[in-house]
């Protein structure tokens, strides 16, 4: 009796399960078809963007593949026209920026690009209901208006010299994005833009695939198919590069070294503004003391960190501006000088106690230093810093934690942090050093408070005169020598290993945050396949 009905039941269940499975088979987001392999490139990156919608922050720094900004950066980070035909006309008071738009540009769905799209994009980003976490970057923007179909006028609340650099921001199509929920509509995962590539598939956590936009206004790219595989683990990325699954990848220095003898691959070291620093909180009785700050600033052996931790792929950092930049103030380099550090502390009344740790007015020269757990690079920097400080008689206890643990402690405890953005010096210095931003999110983590710096930061962002601006940022860097509220340690090179199959590869100066816009593939649309003989 039972066995037959049982078997029938089991078969029915199985059949049902299979039917459901078969019916539901569609790859999340998959749409298009692939092309030939000869003109395609696959690269491995570590982080994927949270969204592909410019309205939510994607492509705000350019190189978005799918979209274009009004302007774009070239390989030297100079601005060049993109969707605008020329650099903007700026009014004498620095409050009005006028852009003339390129004619005949279409979105990849064939609809024309007009001034209305620009106005829509900027207004939507500024809208309170839009969940865009980078909105702060457009703080200076009062309003944007279209004048006819091909002119756009931006009005600012206050003169903001680096504003033009913000307009590399990607432009979204009004006719598609306007009709849907800006925060969760289909546009956020299936974007349509004017850019050199069209998204074919975004399988979250796995890969993002693009195909060339044949109607691109800048000429159709020669690399017809471009895929970015998201591989968080460095070792797995290196293995897949070696096995040929990837054509290129970002790698840490120790793994990149393994490819130096591979003739078929080239290593590119991108210069960066990516610094590692130690915050010295103003509200900590030890770290807030100017003598301790100055002593630590010269007790630390930056060159040893570059050689040992970065294996030479980086530079000592003396401030937020890398030594190679035109904005760097010559003469603010500080050599490693332990004897002088000890003298500064002695003179200030920090006398060595019985255990070798200095004491002043009953306060022991000791404070905790947090680093992000799991981040090997930060851990190494933190340990090296603590060991250098120990030699000068300052005890630093390193502790690992996640941001949830670290954030509430930032006011009093030191943190091994990273940051930096290229382009205008205002971009990261204002957020890092302005006293009014102390404790504002992750801005000015050390609660640095220096009136001379505050004034220079304001001067620097409100004038358009290059010499005056240079003078302002020179003041900031000199003040940081007198009262270093942060100990800057290193600027880190980003290393990329790429198959030598294309010409035209270069790297831009890169920011701390290096997502898919960085790396030699920042301009994959301009790559030219070398005569493929395979």
């Amino acid at each position: 009796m039972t066995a037959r009905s049982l078997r029938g039941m089991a078969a029915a269940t199985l059949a049902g399960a299979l039917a459901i499975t078969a019916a539901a088979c569609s790859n999340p987001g998959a749409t298009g078809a692939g092309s030939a392999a000869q003109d395609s490139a696959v690269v491995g990156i570590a982080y994927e963007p949270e969204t592909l919608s410019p309205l939510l922050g994607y492509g705000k720094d350019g190189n978005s593949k799918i979209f274009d900004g009004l302007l774009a950066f070239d390989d030297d980070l100079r601005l060049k026209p993109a969707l605008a035909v020329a650099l903007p006309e700026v009014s004498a008071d620095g409050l009005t920026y006028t852009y003339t738009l390129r004619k005949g540009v279409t979105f990849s769905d064939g609809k024309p690009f007009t001034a209305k799209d620009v106005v829509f994009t900027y207004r939507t980003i500024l809208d309170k209901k839009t969940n865009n976490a980078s909105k702060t970057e457009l703080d200076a923007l009062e309003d944007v208006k279209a004048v006819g179909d091909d002119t756009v006028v931006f009005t600012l609340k206050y003169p903001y010299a680096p504003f033009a650099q913000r307009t590399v921001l990607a432009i979204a199509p009004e006719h598609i994005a306007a009709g849907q929920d800006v925060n969760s509509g289909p546009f956020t995962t299936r974007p349509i833009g004017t850019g050199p590539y069209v998204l074919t598939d975004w399988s979250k956590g796995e890969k993002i695939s693009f195909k060339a936009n044949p109607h691109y206004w800048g000429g159709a790219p020669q690399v017809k198919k471009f895929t970015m595989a998201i591989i968080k683990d460095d070792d797995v990325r290196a293995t897949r590069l070696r096995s040929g699954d990837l054509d290129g990848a970002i790698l840490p220095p120790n793994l990149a070294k393994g490819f130096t003898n591979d003739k078929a691959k080239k290593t590119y070291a991108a210069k960066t503004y990516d610094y590692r620093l130690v915050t010295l909180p103003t509200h900590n009785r030890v770290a807030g003391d100017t003598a301790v700050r100055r002593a630590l600033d010269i007790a630390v052996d930056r060159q040893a960190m570059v050689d040992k931790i970065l294996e030479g792929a980086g530079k000592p950092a003396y401030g937020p501006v890398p030594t190679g930049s035109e904005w760097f103030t010559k003469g603010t380099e500080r050599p490693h000088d332990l004897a002088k550090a000890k003298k500064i502390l002695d003179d200030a009344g920090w006398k060595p106690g019985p255990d070798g740790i200095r004491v002043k007015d009953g306060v022991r020269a000791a404070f905790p230093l947090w680093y992000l757990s799991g981040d090997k690079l930060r851990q190494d920097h933190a340990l090296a810093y603590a060991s250098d400080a120990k030699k000068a008689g300052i005890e630093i206890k390193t502790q690992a934690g996640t941001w949830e643990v670290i954030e509430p402690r930032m006011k009093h405890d030191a943190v091994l942090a990273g940051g930096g953005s290229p382009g205008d010096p205002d971009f990261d210095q204002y957020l890092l050093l302005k006293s009014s931003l102390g404790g504002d999110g992750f801005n000015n983590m050390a609660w640095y408070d220096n009136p001379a710096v505050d004034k220079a930061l304001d001067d620097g962002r409100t004038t358009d005169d290059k010499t005056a601006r240079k003078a302002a940022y020179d003041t900031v860097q000199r003040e940081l020598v007198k009262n270093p509220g942060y100990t800057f340690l290193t600027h880190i090179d980003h290393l990329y290993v790429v198959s030598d199959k294309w010409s035209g590869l270069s790297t831009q100066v890169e920011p701390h945050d290096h997502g898919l816009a960085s790396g030699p593939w920042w301009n994959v649309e301009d790559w030219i396949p070398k005569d493929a003989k395979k």
Partner: protein
Amino acid sequence: MTRRVPWAAMARMAGRRALFAVPVLLAVTFGVFAVAAASPFDPVKAYAGTAGLTASQDNLDQLRANLGVDQPLVSRWWHWLGSAVTGDLGDSSVMRQPVADVIAERIGWSALLAGAAFAVAIVLGTALGVLAARRQGGWLDRSVTSAAYTLEAAPAFWLGLLAIWFFALKLGVLPAGGLTDTASDTVTFGQVASHLVLPALVLGVSQLPWFFLYVRQGVADALDEDPVRGARARGLNERTVLLGHALRSGMLPMLTLIGSRVPELITGALLVESVFSWPGIAAATVQAATSVDFPLLAALTVLATAAVLLGNLLSDLLYGLADPRVGFDG
């Protein structure tokens, strides 16, 4: 010999269970909201990602209000419940998509993986169980049984990493993860099949020991019982005795097992999908949890709870059918 299937009794049982499921689901969703609210993760920070590190506090506060996470726990849960009942599951903050879309895109792949793994576990477990029971104490029995106990203790993600290391990195015969090859963006049968092998095997093998041990014990016990002795005495061949008599009664405890393994299968899938970058709902659950994405997390938990309740119902129904003495009173 044939008995009519007692549809009415079965339907009554299913109805009772459905009524019972309502308070369970309510409690589970509230529990998810409470646990997520108590977790140290900040949904706003998770939403903003790296941009959050340079965003102003105003900007972050605005985000908090927009995402609705500044509301107290109970009102947030009540609001979610109110829309969920009308069929609106809300928007996932981490995926930037409506929750219903996230689930629709992914549930098929999860069902495929879990179905394949379940099939592997049941088929292999039964076959090995019967073979081991036939010659208890033989080399096959001894080696498979000890392997099964070892596997019971091995976590699925560890098995997954081991499989990737061996099959993908050392031998290079199977892909290490994903649904299709990196360079390909069309979903073809062959691609999916080759990418399914490793995760399905790992998930199946992690469930296998329970099925194997149950079948082995059941069949071994049945072989000692009167019906089998009678069948042998009547001169039936060994094959008929083993499959027709011993396996049939030895399978009974396995029916309960199918239901009770569903939760294990779901937790196993959480780990396996993450390890193999399989684009299913289990991988999305992990992301939803670490980003404190309330709507997505709640919807996925409801789904998992429903799967467990359904699994239990199914196994009780099957058991009732197989052994009428049990009935459908539960």
